[in-house]
């Protein structure tokens, strides 16, 4: 098991190096940082001096190491657009995104898993068919359109929910939370559903497919032949075996929830990192783009790692004798 985790760790480091390279390439080669920092009337000599001062004339590997060194310390430079340290901007925006993603994930799991179990166990019931129809529509509805429709119905027509922003937030240290106020919670409902709906359908389909697969296995048949109750077979045996791959893929989806937050945040003008990133793309604010990329990658890598370790804990076959199973999403 130790070798397994060490190997995954090494892989994670590799991924981060690759992403850092991309981030650095963005930083160093896309657009001219100097042009973005100084005004039109700065003289050529001043520009060159600035270039020298910033180390932009150093060889690329040196610049890369400096970039990584700074990034590790949380220094991604100044935003071209805001003129403030990128790290500050991200820290300010992170709680909004994380809270939204958390709410969406909880919604997706709490609704998606039971729906998936139901559709697998009672395939012919009308409810199962209704769930499947919903899931198909859910997958066919782009996130932004779900947001727009929810706003149209619940904010514009019915006037029940706010259509943008986080509502009132409470500041706890550097963290701002919307979970503690009524308006904050209310503001979270529509964005969380918007962001979670796709994941919910995905989880539902995944649970269904996995469970159907497990229900066909010999050990389930043998469990039935042993006379165990339907409850024990379905929920004791089948569900546990279903959840092993579901944990992996759901965990991996957590990362994409954070990425998909870009769209939801744009629709709901939710002041998170995604909105910041969108604005950065629009204004070619490279430092913000690079930092967001590296940050999201770090989150992904961390999530992957946690998922792998969880996987090992759940599946006894991997616990002993350093399993050879890669925890990746591909099956």
């Amino acid at each position, binding site marked *: 098991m130790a070798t397994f985790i060490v190997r995954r760790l090494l892989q994670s480091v590799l991924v981060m190096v690759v992403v850092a390279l991309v981030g650095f390439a963005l930083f160093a080669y896309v657009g001219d940082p100097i042009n973005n920092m100084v005004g039109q009337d700065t003289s050529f000599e001043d520009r060159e001096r600035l270039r020298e001062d910033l180390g932009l004339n150093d060889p690329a590997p040196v610049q890369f190491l400096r970039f990584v060194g700074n990034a590790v310390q949380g220094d991604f430079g100044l935003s071209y657009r805001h003129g403030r340290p990128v790290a500050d901007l991200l820290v300010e925006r992170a709680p909004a995104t994380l809270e939204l993603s958390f709410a969406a994930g909880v919604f997706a799991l709490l609704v998606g898993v039971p729906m998936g179990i139901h559709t697998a166990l009672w395939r012919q019931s009308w409810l199962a068919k209704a769930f499947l129809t919903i899931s198909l529509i859910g997958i066919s509805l782009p996130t932004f359109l779900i947001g727009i429709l929810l706003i149209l119905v619940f904010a514009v027509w019915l006037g029940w929910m706010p259509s943008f922003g986080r509502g009132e937030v409470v500041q706890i240290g550097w963290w701002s939370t919307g979970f503690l106020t009524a308006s904050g919670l209310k503001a979270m409902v529509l964005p969380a559903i918007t962001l979670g709906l796709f994941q919910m359908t995905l989880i539902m389909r995944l649970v269904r497919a996995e469970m159907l697969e497990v229900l066909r296995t010999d*050990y389930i048949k043998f*469990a*039935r032949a*042993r*006379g165990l109750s339907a409850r*024990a077979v379905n929920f004791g045996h089948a569900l*546990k075996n279903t959840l*092993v791959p579901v944990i992996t893929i759901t965990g991996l989806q957590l990362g994409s929830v954070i990425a998909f937050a870009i769209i939801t945040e744009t629709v709901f003008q939710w002041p998170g990192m995604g909105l910041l990133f969108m604005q950065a793309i629009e204004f070619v604010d490279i430092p913000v783009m690079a930092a967001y990329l590296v940050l999201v990658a770090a989150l992904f890598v961390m999530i992957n790692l946690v998922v792998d370790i969880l996987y090992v804990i759940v599946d006894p076959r991997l616990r*002993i004798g350093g399993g050879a199973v890669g925890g990746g999403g591909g099956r």
Partner: protein
Amino acid sequence: MTESLLSVRDLIVEFPTRRGALRVVDGVSLDIVPGEVLGVVGESGAGKSQTGAAIIGLLEPPGRIVDGTVHLEGERLDTLSGDQWRRVRGRRIGAVFQDPLTSLNPLYTVGRQLTETIRTHLDMTEKQARARALELLGEVGIPAAADRLDAWPHQFSGGMRQRVVIALALCANPRLIIADEPTTALDVSIQAQITALLKRLCREHGTAVMLITHDMGVIAETADRVAVMYAGRLVETGPVDDLVNRPRHPYTEGLMGCIPTMHARPVRLDQIEGAMPAPRAVPPGCAFHPRCPLAVERCTSERPPLVARPPLATACWVRSPDGDAA
């Protein structure tokens, strides 16, 4: 003959498909008396596994029993509801499947799977169930059972796992065990051990066994009586000694040619020319006639009934032409 433990009459199992129903078991009747080992033999696809599955009510959907009856100790099984089945399966009929590697849930310890089964059927505390589990593991010949109780299935070898599976089938002391190819997936060296174990345990517990296999060698060593199946139909039944040494049906005769001699590795049943027809392509008359060296005109048009001429009952126009259907 003593009172039947299990009695199957005119069983027909079909799988509906878009090109009409596939009849995989076609009018099978058989009896098992308490404590006996009935070997059911035939090539793969002969319908022997489906017969076993139908008896314990575990036909894979959409397969279903379209006709015939199954009685266990006088109680009709084929009409039981899902809930009533649970008091039969595991408690009165146990099952052992082919592949011990996949029969155990990999995510639960062996002990957990045993105690769970024991407590489903017997009114026991967790502690009593553990004691019984330990006893069962010892009985099936697992060394250092106390240490292995909390081990995971993947830590057992194939043969050891099949022993665990047998222990699981014996949890509630059933009257009948349906063993579907219990040794096929095992190493040859282990096969004999498992067969002997099954036979010994059943004798000790007074449990009857329906032993489904394609291996005539296993049958000859283990069974008291044999039923030979071909293309979903029963072609011959009788005591093992008579059937092996003096078979009447030409198909059984062909099978006997496949018994290993001098402990050589058993040869599969494909020594008979040709292949068994698929359920969709069973010819009219006797299903075996295209491959039969003795076939006459009548074999191609009329289906021969199973005719009892003790000690055997045979379905063949040539070898067993007279008498009424058994």
